[in-house]
């Protein structure tokens, strides 16, 4: 028989006691791991969703004059210099250092064209990107498919008295109304949207873009940095990060993380107390056993090894069981919450809980050891 076998036999033959210690440790670890992983996943899921919600960077042509519009109301003013960005800017954006952090790039060409109902606001867009960016858009009818299918803002449709399926003349081209947007309360309500290339052709702006709206994943990279990188890539453009959008998003996700951490800390404290109470409940048993072993002639170091192995076994078993349960909890939690964005369960997450569990088990065995070494063997044996 080796020293380790003495520890093992203790766990094996006093199953109820060992199971109780292991279970209380496992539950603590499981709850911690579940909370942390579900919290992390929710956080990245939320960030992911928020990041796709509207633009947080706007790329405009550089102009020398002051901007004389406020809240969509243009009060005129002469602008000099370039009024557009080249289409090549789009490929330049995809080549910046933090390109992976960019989720949506939505180029637009903007102008005015005559219809039967007078001059109308024309916005050429990449519909796929635009719908990704504007998650709040809802429409009757369908998304435009062909080059001469358009999407009308609510006000524009109202003024022109148009419904999905109707046709009208835009400049000198017949176009089909594929869908009508519900009211958004923004400039979108007054616009006629059509495919970027069609709009460029009608406005005689081939190869030119009026502005680019970009949605970057602000949780992974500071938005300011991405803006600067785009600015360097396209020297003819003015790149403006929308700070409010970024700050708001960060605050929301950080609050979620803080909440998960606070609860985890609480769980750690509670389960630590339970574990300490469980294992320390048998201090006197421990003291007597140590007294017997020492009386028989075991050295202090041998006794220490026996007790340490036992504590480590309990800690590891509890930690690993807890981690497995935690993984189960995470899987269920992720399913219930139907989160999107990659799974964030990692073995690394379980490393510290298992370490803490083991340390806790060792810590809990110390009072018995301390009491037994302080007493002479004959007294330790007599402890009741």
């Amino acid at each position, binding site marked *: 028989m080796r020293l380790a076998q003495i520890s093992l036999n203790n766990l094996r033959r006093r199953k109820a006691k060992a199971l109780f210690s292991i279970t209380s440790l496992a539950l603590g670890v499981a709850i911690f791991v579940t909370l942390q992983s579900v919290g992390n996943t929710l956080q990245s899921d939320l960030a992911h969703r928020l990041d796709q919600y509207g633009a947080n960077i706007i790329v405009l042509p550089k102009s020398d004059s002051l901007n004389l519009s406020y809240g969509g109301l243009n009060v005129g003013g002469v602008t000099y210099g370039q009024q557009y960005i080249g289409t090549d800017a789009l490929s330049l954006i995809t080549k910046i250092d933090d390109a992976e952090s960019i989720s949506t790039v939505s180029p637009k060409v903007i102008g005015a064209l005559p219809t039967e109902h007078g001059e109308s606001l024309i916005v050429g867009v990449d519909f796929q990107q635009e719908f990704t960016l504007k998650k709040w858009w809802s429409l009757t009818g369908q998304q435009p498919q062909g080059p001469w299918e358009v999407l009308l803002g609510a006000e524009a449709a109202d003024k022109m008295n148009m419904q999905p399926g109707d046709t009208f003349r835009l400049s000198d081209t017949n176009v089909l109304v594929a869908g009508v947007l519900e009211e958004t309360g923004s400039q979108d309500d007054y616009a006629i949207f059509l495919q970027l290339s069609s709009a460029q052709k009608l406005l005689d702006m081939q190869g030119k873009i009026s502005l680019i709206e970009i949605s970057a994943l602000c949780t992974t990279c500071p938005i300011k940095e991405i803006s600067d990188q785009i600015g360097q890539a396209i020297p003819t453009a003015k790149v403006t990060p929308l700070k409010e959008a970024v700050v708001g998003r960060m605050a929301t996700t950080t609050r979620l993380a803080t909440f998960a951490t606070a609860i985890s800390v609480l769980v750690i404290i509670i389960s630590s107390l339970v574990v300490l109470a469980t294992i320390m409940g048998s201090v006197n048993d421990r003291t007597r056993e140590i007294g017997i072993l*020492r009386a028989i*002639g075991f050295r202090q170091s041998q006794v220490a090894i026996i007790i340490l192995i036992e504590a480590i076994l309990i800690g590891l078993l509890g930690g690993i069981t807890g981690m497995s349960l935690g993984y189960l909890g995470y899987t269920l939690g992720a399913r219930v919450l139907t989160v999107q964005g990659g799974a964030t369960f990692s073995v690394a997450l379980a490393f510290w809980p298992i370490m803490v569990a083991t340390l806790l088990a060792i810590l809990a065995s110390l009072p018995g050891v301390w009491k037994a070494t302080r007493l*002479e063997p004959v007294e330790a044996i007599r402890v009741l």
Partner: protein
Amino acid sequence: MSSLVQAQQITKEYQTGPVKALALQGVNLTVSKGEFLSIIGPSGSGKSTLLSVIGGLCTPTRGSLKVDGFNVYDLPQEKLADYRREYIGFVFQQFQLIPYLTALENVMLPLVAAGLKNNQQVAAAKEVLEKVGLGQKTQRLPSQLSGGEQERVAISRAIVNKPPLILADEPTGALDSRTTEEILELLAQLHSEGQTIIMITHNPKVAARAQRIVEIVDGKIAS
């Protein structure tokens, strides 16, 4: 015969809070090699304390204990543990078996402490358990054994590493007369093989089985 144990002016005071209990007051005792000695005396007279001092389990407040020529309580911690393992086989009053180890494993303990190979541990422990008549019950836990059987496991554990000195604290105290007789037979047999034994009892009949009787009253040798 040469002496194995020389206790000189052993005094032991227990301090329980502000109260001091004087358990031993200047005890002198010499035990020869191969001797079978019994210690009698009323309850609380200091018998167990004396045996613990001799067994290296309890440091005397004053006095010296020489065993085999060296001063036991001058030894450092770890050497004192070695002394207990190599010189002493202690049979405790309440057996003090480890509850989660089988009879065999309990008997193996002193050999585990000595770092013997597993097969040597098993062979030696089995041999001793055979000798005390427990060859069929080596795999039982203490809770699955009767009082007399537990006593025999405790004696087996005390003799398994062949220590020069067996110390038995009321080994028959909790046993019926038939089992008492069996245990005394066992001790007598060990003595006949040359084993030095010190046995505590408060039963004069049991004490009479030894070669010499020492009586302790109020922490002093009375006769």
